[in-house]
């Protein structure tokens, strides 16, 4: 328990140090934050352009898709904030600087993800919250205790699922250091995949990305539950309750994959 508290305290200090560093270049930071904020709006602009041509997509209205988008992108923004540093991780393998991580008395994954925090990534979270706010006011949701619970747990669960996917995906660089771009298919691909209703995808793509990689539990199933909407795919509503359990399983699996990958690590001799 003391170790956990110590870890949390260290995490806080590392975050604070990075934040102070990033606030040194204020103009650039402001532009960066604004950039992250607007890039997400252009992202959503694409969805609005789609809905300027059709009233609904795969049986989902614009407000319903906005709900999916808000939930998925809020989880994604938090993921990017928490483990976004994994993007830079392949460089550590290439340079051999991962050796230093291995000899320090902290978890390897902890050290890697705390390498750098980008405060500007929060611009994205802000935008996701705004879209979510729009969806919740536009949709006539009858809030009950269970729906509120599913909704409240969906974003943390989605964040854990995304984080797990990021960790597993980046492990490819332990085997093929140049293969990092393949991880994007699951990280940024996962972000793209989850902001649309999964019933518009072909069956094999759904089996792969929605169930095998459990991306349907980030936004789709919880959103169906909250909206009290029957699944166009005919799957039962209680799947929306499972997101936290799926997140837990994903985290355990990701931890195991990371551990196995680290054991496979051979230094480049940095």
């Amino acid at each position, binding site marked *: 328990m003391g170790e956990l508290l110590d870890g949390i305290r260290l995490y806080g200090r590392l975050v604070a140090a990075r934040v102070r560093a990033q606030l040194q*270049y204020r*103009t*650039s*930071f*402001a*532009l*960066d934050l*604004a*950039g*992250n904020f*607007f*890039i997400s709006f*252009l*992202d959503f*602009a*694409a969805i609005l*352009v*789609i809905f*300027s*041509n*059709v*009233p*609904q*997509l*795969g049986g989902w209205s614009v407000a319903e898709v906005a709900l999916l988008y808000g939930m998925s992108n809020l989880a994604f923004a938090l993921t990017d904030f928490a483990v976004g540093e994994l993007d830079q991780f392949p460089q550590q393998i290439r340079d051999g600087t991962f050796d230093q991580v291995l000899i320090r008395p902290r978890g390897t994954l902890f050290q890697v993800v705390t390498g750098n925090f980008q405060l500007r990534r929060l611009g994205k979270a802000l935008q996701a919250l705004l879209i979510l706010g729009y969806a919740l006011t536009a949709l006539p949701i009858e809030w009950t205790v269970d729906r509120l619970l599913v909704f409240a747990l969906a974003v943390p669960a989605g964040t854990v699922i995304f984080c797990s996917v990021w960790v597993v995906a980046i492990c*490819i660089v332990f085997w*093929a*250091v*140049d*293969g*990092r*771009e*393949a*991880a*994007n*298919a699951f990280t940024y*691909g996962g972000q*793209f*995949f989850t902001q*649309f209703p999964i019933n*518009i*995808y*072909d069956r094999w*793509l759904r089996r792969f*990305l929605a169930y095998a990689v459990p991306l349907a539990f980030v936004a789709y199933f919880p959103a169906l539950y909250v909206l009290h909407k029957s699944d166009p795919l005919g799957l039962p509503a209680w799947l929306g309750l499972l997101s936290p359990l799926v997140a837990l399983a994903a985290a355990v699996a990701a931890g195991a994959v990371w551990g196995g990958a680290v054991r496979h690590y051979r230094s480049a001799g940095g």
Partner: protein
Amino acid sequence: MIAALRADLEIARRGYARYAAYPVATLAGLFTNTLFGFMRGFVLLALFEQRSEIGGYDAAATLTYTWLTQALIATVFIWGWLDLAIRIRSGDIVTDLVRPIHPLRAALANDLGRSAYHAVFRGVPVLLVGALMFDLIAPAGPLEWFAFFVSAALAVVVSFAFRFLYNIPAFWLLDFRGIAVLAMILSSLFSGFVIPIAFFPDWLAAIAHATPFPAMVQIPIDIFVGAVRGPQIAVALAVQAAWAAGLLLLCRVCFALGVRRLVVQGG
């Protein structure tokens, strides 16, 4: 003149070789571009459950558009390019300045070599996967094929000039990421990379057409799927050529202004 062209060619070869040296990276990129091709394709296909055509694009043209954009990601280099900015910040740019070839020209030759590699190894395979899995449409005849290749090459030049341009603020700003991010956002939407410009509401399409961005993605694709045809093709190519020339000129001017500000600490 001949010597300069030979130097260009040699630099282009190096640009090609730099990327050819990492086949695993190419495979990984192919995997990602292909998976995104499927995802984006199904999203856009869902529109055609309710519509038979949108702005001249039917389902087949839209799918072709999707796979072409995926094939052009690496070729045109839609995502970030900060090579120049990094060289400016580190001071390495001085070695470029003492060389007998202008850094803009050298970087353009390098980028054309790079795009040749990406066209063959990141573009063609993605398009082949799309063509095997879906009924894509092909250009109407040899003339259209030829126009498409010319247009794609011009798209690379426009994209290069734009990327070079958003790297130049590094002469003034120590941390240049912000501007680069804004530039990437604008180009990905207004180039028609995310959604075809034909799907835009009129006012948004008008904004897009006032920018150089459609010349990077939308124009070659419009030629490929036949949304632009006949004499319009010549007009479209002229528009691209004008943007390429204008942006390169702007790069040249801004670069010269930046160099005047450049201070490199000893070494």
